[in-house]
């Protein structure tokens, strides 16, 4: 029985016991004003024992298990892709698909509960943020850990413009994006010559500085009190509240002579989010096909080659940074409108980390992946509400497992590429023209 590995099995079990002994095995309890140690509940001791047994046997039979796993992997049939592609290439099909998809997205909220629509709206905000950060991290390859700063700029610009100048959502949406882009430009200018991890920590610093300044500047931003009663967007001057908040405005339901239902407001916000996401996708896809988009990717792949070809890396990085920031600004403005209340605690570092996780989980550079990841990251915790105690634990675990098992993300980015066949296959089939995969 050479495949049984006793030493590593015993070792791993010992490691597990050491790890859990003074953490799960005991409980620190305050007693009066002192501290005492008690044994943990019997159930958690059982859990430790069960864990130890599982680890022991897993390590013991590791070799056969690995063999079995690889056997399964080989047996899995691969899905033939050609027929699908042919269907997808048919003329008219894509137009139909767009129509169906958009129609589905628009009609769907009328048939489900308002909580679901609201959740979908939140997911769409993250889709927007993910797509924006995807430009910076996924396409241009700049590690930005302070993206949430620009999100905050967008949210606060709507809140402040509305509070002090009385601007409505629509003009603030534009201004919020522009302001965030401006911040991205100004902050990006000095720091973009830094490389890799230095850039990461500086952007992290900027994100924190923006948040702390918002928190300390009480006279303007309300400091920790935040800004409340931010109006919801209106549809051509029609408001969605029970009563119109502004003089001369007519509530939506009165205008159409239907009964008041708060669901309209939620659905309206949702549809707005869908439109914003579609606009974002449209703009980004255009940019990607422009020289600038190509330059982003080229820069990510090879800095030096890029410079040798006469591209100006600073200008390219700056454009990615600025455009990425602009989308965060749009998302922020919308977030402020959906939330109705914002305070600096919504813009902490962990938010940046989550957006970054969305980009990486989705597969860097891949927009489909980012959308999928954003939806999963927002909706999955809701499913797990039953286990709310364990929610964040599982979230962390999922991030690790995903990276270990599928580091390229859910939907890796595809790009036009030509595979040079190895010599052996060349001799077999004379010259096969390599297929050019579609880029996303």
């Amino acid at each position, binding site marked *: 029985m050479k495949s049984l590995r006793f030493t590593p099995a015993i070792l791993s079990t010992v490691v597990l016991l050491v790890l859990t002994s003074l953490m*799960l095995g005991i*409980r620190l309890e305050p007693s009066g004003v002192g*501290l*005492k140690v008690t044994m943990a509940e019997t159930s958690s001791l059982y859990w430790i024992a069960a864990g130890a047994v599982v680890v022991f046997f897993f390590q013991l039979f590791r070799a056969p298990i690995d063999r079995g796993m690889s056997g399964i992997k080989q047996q899995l049939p691969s899905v033939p892709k050609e027929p699908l592609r042919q269907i997808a290439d048919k003329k008219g099909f894509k137009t139909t698909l767009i129509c169906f998809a958009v129609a589905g997205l628009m009609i769907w909220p009328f048939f489900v509960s308002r909580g679901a629509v609201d959740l979908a709206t939140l997911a769409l905000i993250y889709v927007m943020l993910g797509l924006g950060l995807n430009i910076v991290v996924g396409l241009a390859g700049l590690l930005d850990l302070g993206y949430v700063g620009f999100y905050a700029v967008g949210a606060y610009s709507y809140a402040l413009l509305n509070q002090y100048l009385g601007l409505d959502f629509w003009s603030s949406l534009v201004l919020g994006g522009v302001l965030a882009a401006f911040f991205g430009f100004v902050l990006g200018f000095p720091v973009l010559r830094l490389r890799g991890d230095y850039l990461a920590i500086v952007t992290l610093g900027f994100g924190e500085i923006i948040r702390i300044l918002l928190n300390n500047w009480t006279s303007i931003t309300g400091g920790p009190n935040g800004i409340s009663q931010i109006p919801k967007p209106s549809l051509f001057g029609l408001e969605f509240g029970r009563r119109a908040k502004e003089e001369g405005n007519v509530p939506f339901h009165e205008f159409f002579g239907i009964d008041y239902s708060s669901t309209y407001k939620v659905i309206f916000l949702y549809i707005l989010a869908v439109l914003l996401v579609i606009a974002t996708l449209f703009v980004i896809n255009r940019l990607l096909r422009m020289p600038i988009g190509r330059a982003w990717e080229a820069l990510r792949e090879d800095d030096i080659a890029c410079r040798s070809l006469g591209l100006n890396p600073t200008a390219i990085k700056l454009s990615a940074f600025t455009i990425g920031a602009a989308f965060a600004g749009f998302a922020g403005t919308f977030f402020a409108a959906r939330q109705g209340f914002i305070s600096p605690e919504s813009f902490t570092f962990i938010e940046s980390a989550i957006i970054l996780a969305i980009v990486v989980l989705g597969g*860097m550079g891949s927009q489909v992946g980012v959308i999928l990841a954003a939806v999963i990251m927002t909706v999955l915790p809701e499913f797990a509400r039953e286990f709310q105690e364990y929610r964040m634990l599982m979230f962390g675990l999922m991030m690790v497992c995903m990276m270990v098992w599928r580091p390229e993300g859910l939907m890796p980015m595809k790009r036009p590429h030509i595979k040079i066949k190895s010599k052996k296959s060349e001799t077999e089939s004379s010259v096969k023209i390599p297929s050019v995969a579609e880029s996303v």
Partner: protein
Amino acid sequence: MPESFFYFIQQLLNGLTVGSTYALIAIGYTMVYGIIGMINFAHGEIYMIGSYIAFAVLAALAMMGIDSVSLMLISAFVISIIITSTYGFAVERVAYRPLRNSNRLIALISAIGMSIFLQNYVRLAQGSRDIAMPSMISGGWTFGPEDGFHATVSYMQLIIFVVTFISMTALTLFISRSKMGRACRACAEDLGMTGLLGINTNQIISITFVIGAALAAVAGVLLGMYYGVINPYIGFMAGLKAFTAAVLGGIGSIPGAVLGGLILGVTEAFTAGYFSSEYKDVVAFSLLVLILLFRPTGILGKPEVEKV
């Protein structure tokens, strides 16, 4: 001597105390970065776990009726270092080793995930409330004018200085003199080549994580006793500050981490002392940005060579 002089000294001492603990944690970041070029985001949580273990040991000993402070301290250090190092070892095996050859970002996300996981693991095991412990070593030295402001150094602060100094010296000796230390330096220089020369690089990387975790445990024990309060969330901020310190000093350089930690600590103390606590973090981060603008690889960092 004028009162303001003693005030200055007091703030300097305060800054150096905080700075030395930043330095202890920062070394973990910098060593890992120096060898495999990844940011071990979960390092702050390792420090937090070190604090918890120390509290458990101290409370257990107190319950057994042992009241010799030195015995308690030594056992807290030893047990905390052993268990926390095991955590460092396990984290590397589970979350980072499978990603050794992948993109930097992948490892970073895995590390962030690990950080969230560990934080919540401790929360579930020990609850989210603050756990406090009475101070064991109190008192200190005072110097300055009889009337008016006088500077104070508590014994605990002294212990922090001394232990930090000892750990740093031991680490420097280990890295510069021992065979293992030479292997570590070789790995930092060129991981692939070192492997070709017959050194077990996986083992060296494991050792790096263990040393980093052990130093984090030292910081955990010291700070846990100095402040007397721990909760599952302390690791995050401490880790962030230590990471900043590591980058400030030039990530990958051990003297840089120490220097960065001290500079960061002193800057924070002076900002709080002469300006306002509210802007402590803003000034700390602005300093970082400024230094990186003029020295893009940190104070003691090696300038990056562009490789094609």
